[in-house]
């Protein structure tokens, strides 16, 4: 680490000229030697050189200002205190006080042989330079809190020295911090970060813990166990109020008070953060505790992640079909189906999509499941064609992550080809939120799908992501409106008006509307009146197995 190709600046402070010159004579081959004859003159050299000074060789007994006073002054300054001091002394009795005042080493008078002095000087400079490098990675530059890696180092060090002490992992985040940065600018965002950091530093110091900022608005605290963190939440909330803060910035604390001795610390903090994230959008909740319920959920999810690949192979993933009916004629006609999955887990029993879809969407495993469903659906369309001589297209889900796969169009083409059906026999459901997130790439992919003959349905329309302006430029064949949008259709005039609006938009775009989640006859009638063509929901049928669906086809 010690670069010997640069000539560092060292300062020799001694009131005896002969001593200065002897030391200078020893050091000048390797160093730029600066001189001062008393403490006061030494301080002015130190102030002039600042961090460019690599070492001070300091005599203690001097007129005007002695060596101890120089050490005291240097210790008071953030920059100077990192410059090492070697004390020049003939008295051993002065050594302890020198060490207390920050001396790094001693050189005895009369001086040792030059090689010894040079070796000592070099060693101390190398030691301090290394320490500086460590310090610069040890601290987060913006806040001065520990950096992530050092935080974990120190935390496990604390555990080592306090075996058996119960500790809590606490995470602190600012809700929607990216929004804060966008509204007020990065400098204001940094101000808020610093403010939170100051509060956390003080709290950690007062409570015998440590604090870090890992990135962005992610803060962590490692503290001896306490029952409640209301005081911390209050301190931060009181502290971060800014006059210009019309957005009403809120924070969230995630607390893990259940750290086992053999838990990895990173995991303990992941759990705390996970608890915190459950209240990210809650206006009046600032603290969430990692509890046994969450732990159970986590273990459950870990099991599902582990089991999914095998489950597909073993046929535990059942594809069910919910029929869609055309209501434009007097008698509703079976015109389509949506493929929905159930997982018949050997241990947990029948699982509905709600318990695993968003989990697999998060970690990308949904791709595996989507592909399986596409294949099954394509084969099913083929079976119905062969068995009943009808074409009933099946809608399948295409996740956002599927669309990012550059081979997606070719893959789906291969699937319909293998099943010997047409691309138009598969309707691809893409959620409205996916349209809003990565518009350009998505539109390109969707255009390619449509060119190949696939039918595109925009799922969950009305969940509030797309602007009207955007809608007109989107390539869609069918708008699918969610149940939530129509649930109070009959009671609530405003919602009724919204539904009318959706249908009007669809007409304007020349795109038919399918409404899913329809449960009552009154809803069907009202939707029919509005001009909705296709309906899916429990009013007609729940999602059913392949066999049950065959009955429905025969009935029709």
């Amino acid at each position, binding site marked *: 680490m010690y670069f010997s190709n640069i000539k560092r600046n060292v300062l020799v402070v001694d*009131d*005896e000229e002969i*001593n200065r*010159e*002897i030391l200078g*004579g*020893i050091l000048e*081959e390797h160093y730029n030697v600066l001189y001062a004859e008393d403490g006061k003159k030494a301080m002015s050299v130190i102030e002039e050189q600042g961090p460019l000074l690599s070492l001070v060789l300091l005599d203690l007994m001097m007129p005007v200002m002695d060596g101890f006073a120089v050490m005291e002054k240097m210790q008071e300054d953030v920059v100077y205190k990192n410059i090492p001091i070697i004390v020049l002394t003939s008295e051993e009795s002065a050594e302890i006080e020198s060490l207390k005042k920050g001396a790094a080493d001693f050189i005895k*008078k009369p001086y040792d042989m030059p090689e010894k002095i040079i070796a000592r000087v070099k060693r101390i400079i190398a030691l301090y330079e290394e320490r500086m490098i460590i310090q610069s990675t040890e601290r987060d530059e913006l806040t001065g809190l520990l950096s992530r890696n050092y935080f974990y180092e120190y935390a496990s060090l604390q555990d080592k020295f306090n075996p058996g002490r119960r500790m809590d992992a606490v995470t602190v985040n600012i809700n929607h911090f990216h929004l804060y940065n966008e509204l007020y600018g990065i400098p204001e965002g940094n101000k808020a970060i610093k403010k939170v950091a100051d509060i956390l530093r003080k709290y950690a110091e007062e409570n015998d813990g440590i604090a870090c900022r890992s990135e962005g608005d992610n803060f962590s605290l490692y503290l001896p166990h306490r029952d409640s963190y209301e005081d911390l939440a209050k301190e931060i909330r009181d502290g971060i109020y800014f006059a210009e803060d019309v957005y009403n910035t809120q924070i969230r604390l995630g607390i893990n008070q259940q750290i086992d001795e053999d838990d990895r610390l990173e995991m303990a903090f992941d759990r705390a953060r996970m608890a915190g994230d459950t209240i990210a959008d809650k206006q009046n909740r600032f603290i969430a505790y990692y509890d046994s319920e969450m732990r159970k959920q986590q273990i459950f999810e870990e099991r599902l992640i582990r089991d999914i690949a095998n489950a597909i192979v073993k046929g535990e993933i059942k594809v069910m079909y919910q029929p869609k009916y055309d209501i434009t004629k007097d008698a509703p006609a079976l015109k389509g189906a949506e493929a929905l999955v159930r997982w018949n887990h050997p241990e947990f029993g029948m699982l509905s999509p709600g318990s695993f879809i968003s989990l697999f969407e998060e970690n990308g495993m949904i791709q595996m499941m989507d592909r399986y469903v596409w294949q099954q659906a394509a084969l099913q369309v083929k079976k119905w064609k062969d068995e009943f001589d009808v074409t009933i297209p099946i809608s399948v889900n295409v996740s956002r992550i599927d669309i990012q796969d550059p081979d997606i169009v070719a893959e789906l083409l291969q699937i319909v080809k293998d099943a010997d059906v047409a691309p138009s026999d598969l309707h691809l459901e893409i959620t409205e939120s996916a349209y809003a997130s990565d518009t350009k790439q998505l539109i390109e992919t969707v255009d390619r799908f449509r060119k190949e003959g696939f039918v595109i349905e925009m799922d969950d329309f009305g969940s509030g992501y797309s602007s009207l302006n955007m809608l007109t430029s989107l390539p869609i064949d069918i708008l699918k409106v969610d149940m939530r949008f129509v649930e109070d259709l009959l009671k609530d005039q405003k919602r009724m008006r919204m539904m009318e609006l959706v249908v009007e938009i669809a007409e304007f775009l020349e795109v038919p509307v399918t409404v899913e989640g329809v449960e009552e006859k009154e809803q069907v009638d009202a939707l029919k009146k509005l001009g909705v063509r296709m309906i899916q929901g429990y009013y007609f049928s729940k999602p059913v197995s392949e066999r049950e669906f065959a009955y429905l086809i025969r009935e029709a």
Partner: protein
Amino acid sequence: MVTTEALKNFGADTDEGITRCAGKEELYLKLVGRIREDAGFSDIKDALEKKDLDRAFESAHKLKGALANLSLGPLLDPVDRITESLRHREDRDYSSDLAEMEVKKKEFDALFA
């Protein structure tokens, strides 16, 4: 000009002194030459006569450091004794140490003649 040989005869450990000056004999002789005019000797005497033990200690301590570094043993011995007594502000009779110091200083000065 004083020679290393003459200093050796005087009783100085010139080998040690020169080594300490990074092997530079010229520097050593130059610094030894400064001792000739060093005000420390008269300061010690003056301060002791005025019973200013603090000032006497400061002067003696400073001079001792220089003499030790130059390995000028014969001059160092009396200055060292004076310094160590003065460190504890001992109000004793310093005349014999002062006398030795002055005798050795005269011998030392004569080396430059």
